[in-house]
């Protein structure tokens, strides 16, 4: 008799739920992780870094070293401190613009998709708004008032809203034609219940995805506005401002531009990765915005 070898091999370790999630959604994981790190750094900035406003003329334009991780600028200010503090401005602008555009866009999109009479008028107004470049609008608004965060956000939200409205409206129109919505109407469902129970839940996933794209584009526009001096006041350390101030010393102190630039690129990448991942996961039909 030949001894049958016992199957003593331990069962293969099964990847946990978390491992499975990471393998299936690498973009959500890496985008989300990067974003969480950036947000955590931004929130902890006062404890993590030195004072971003402290001038130290003796230590002007020092290259990155152990003492100044990202070097110093032409006034001897710590670029690391300024960059991390700059993340607060960018992330705040991105978040507020995304939330504001999503809310306004959702409301208008629902109205447009639901009431055919309003649709034509509102959509033409949206087309008009979409044609306004946010940079020009911001410059115009700032010449009328004082530069500030609120003006920057307003100037970015106005041209971003139409994009959200279009997405929401097209989704509402397609959901309205769904048999289950017709069935609900035939069953006497109307008004607020039809909207909140049957139409709204299906618009949320694409809205969140669209929100991440708006957020990424808002951060880029904010940096551009600050760079041009039409954004947040120049004394506030935002990435656009840091780059603008470092511009004249680019050849001798490239770190003053490269590092905030890299952070901007990384943040936008993180948000876009997260958005792409969420889109694939939540709503594969939604075409990527240009």
């Amino acid at each position, binding site marked *: 008799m030949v001894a049958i070898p016992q199957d003593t091999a331990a069962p293969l370790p099964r990847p946990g739920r978390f491992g499975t999630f990471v393998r299936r959604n690498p973009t959500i994981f890496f985008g989300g992780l990067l974003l969480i790190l950036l947000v955590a750094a931004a929130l902890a900035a006062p404890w993590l870094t030195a004072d971003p406003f402290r001038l130290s003329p003796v230590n002007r334009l020092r290259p990155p070293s152990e003492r100044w991780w990202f070097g110093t600028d032409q006034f001897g200010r710590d670029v690391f401190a300024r960059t991390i503090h700059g993340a607060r401005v960018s992330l705040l602008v991105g978040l507020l613009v995304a939330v504001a555009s999503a809310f306004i866009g959702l409301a208008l999109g629902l109205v447009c998709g639901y009431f055919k009479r309003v649709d034509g008028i509102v959509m033409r107004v949206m087309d008009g708004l979409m044609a306004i470049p946010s940079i020009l609008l911001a410059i115009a608004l700032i010449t009328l008032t004082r530069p500030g965060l609120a003006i920057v956000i307003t100037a970015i939200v106005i041209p971003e809203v139409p994009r959200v409205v279009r997405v929401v409206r097209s989704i509402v129109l397609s959901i309205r034609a*769904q*048999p*289950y*919505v*017709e*069935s*609900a*109407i*035939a*069953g*006497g*469902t*109307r008004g607020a*219940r039809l909207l909140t*129970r*049957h139409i709204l*839940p*299906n618009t949320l996933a694409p809205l969140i995805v669209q929100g991440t794209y708006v957020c990424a584009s808002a951060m880029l526009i904010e940096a551009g506005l600050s760079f041009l001096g039409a954004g947040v006041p120049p004394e506030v350390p935002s990435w656009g401002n840091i780059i603008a101030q470092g511009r004249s010393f680019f050849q001798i102190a490239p770190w003053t531009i490269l590092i905030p630039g890299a952070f901007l690129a990384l943040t936008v990448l993180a948000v876009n990765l997260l958005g792409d991942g969420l889109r694939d996961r939540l709503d594969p039909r939604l075409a990527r915005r240009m």
Partner: protein
Amino acid sequence: MSEAPSLEVRNLVKHFPIHSGLLQRRTGWVRAVDGVSFAIKRGETLGLVGESGCGKSTVGKTVLKLMEPSSGQILIEGTDVTHLAGGAMWPHRRRIQTVFQDPYSSLNPRLTAGTIVGEPLENFGLAKGSEKEARVAALFERVGLRPDAMNRYTHEFSGGQRQRLGIAKALSVNPDVIVADEPVSALDVSVQAQVLNLMIDLQDEYRLAYLFISHDLAVMRHISHRIAVMYLGRIVELADKRTLFSAPQHPYTEALLAAAPVPDPKRKKAGRVVLKGDVPSPAKPPSGCHFHTRCPYALPVCRQQDPPLIEVAPGHHVACLRRPAGGDPVPLTPTA
């Protein structure tokens, strides 16, 4: 005939505009429904049969006022609802309910079965809270579902069970009329029979009037009392089931019946009318009788004259120039 019919449709027309070109100007109309009239009594089933695209579903949606009719009249229990829009139509929706074709897309995937079935009760303020729960549970039992399935989502149900949910929902507000648009065509044959028998039982119990839309003649034969045959937006023949199946008068009905498979291998194939060509576009319906382009018995006059729907025998209406009123059903000889 003292009481008003549960559902009456008079000369219903639904035309859809065609927009084309750079300026999206209206360049024509699709005549989906082109003058359809019928009446359904309490406890009666009228079958509406026809090929795809003949306008039978449009009739259903228009009657439900999910679409505005272009012209004509719709009366529910004698009340004219043709021009009632939005809020004015709403109280009448309780009287006319619907079972949709696709049991997969006609139930909101984000809601539980109990919520879907109980929604019309909530809408019309008929029951709330625990009373609603109890009524929904009773409805579940009535349509052959376990009441404890109320908390499940619709994807957990099979096609037949979903259609039972649709029926329970339609039934929840005690309607007079149910418009059933191909309610069983997405189901397996054995399940079809169960759902049809359930619908027949419910009809007997509640004296419901059914407008039953289908392309399936076997299903029609099972459930309908009377059958209307539609071709390109018009009713070409309307008769009670027995007459229609045994002695069809319109050439199109004849061809439709001949095309349906009969499970009898010994049946003679001779004399079968087989239609040639395709259904013309409803955007450009042929002049005169819509059917003359494919009719094997067409006369020159068929190209010019619209055949009216005339009663050739009591309760038997035919729209064919070769079938004058009172004429005997003589066999026709092909003209071409």
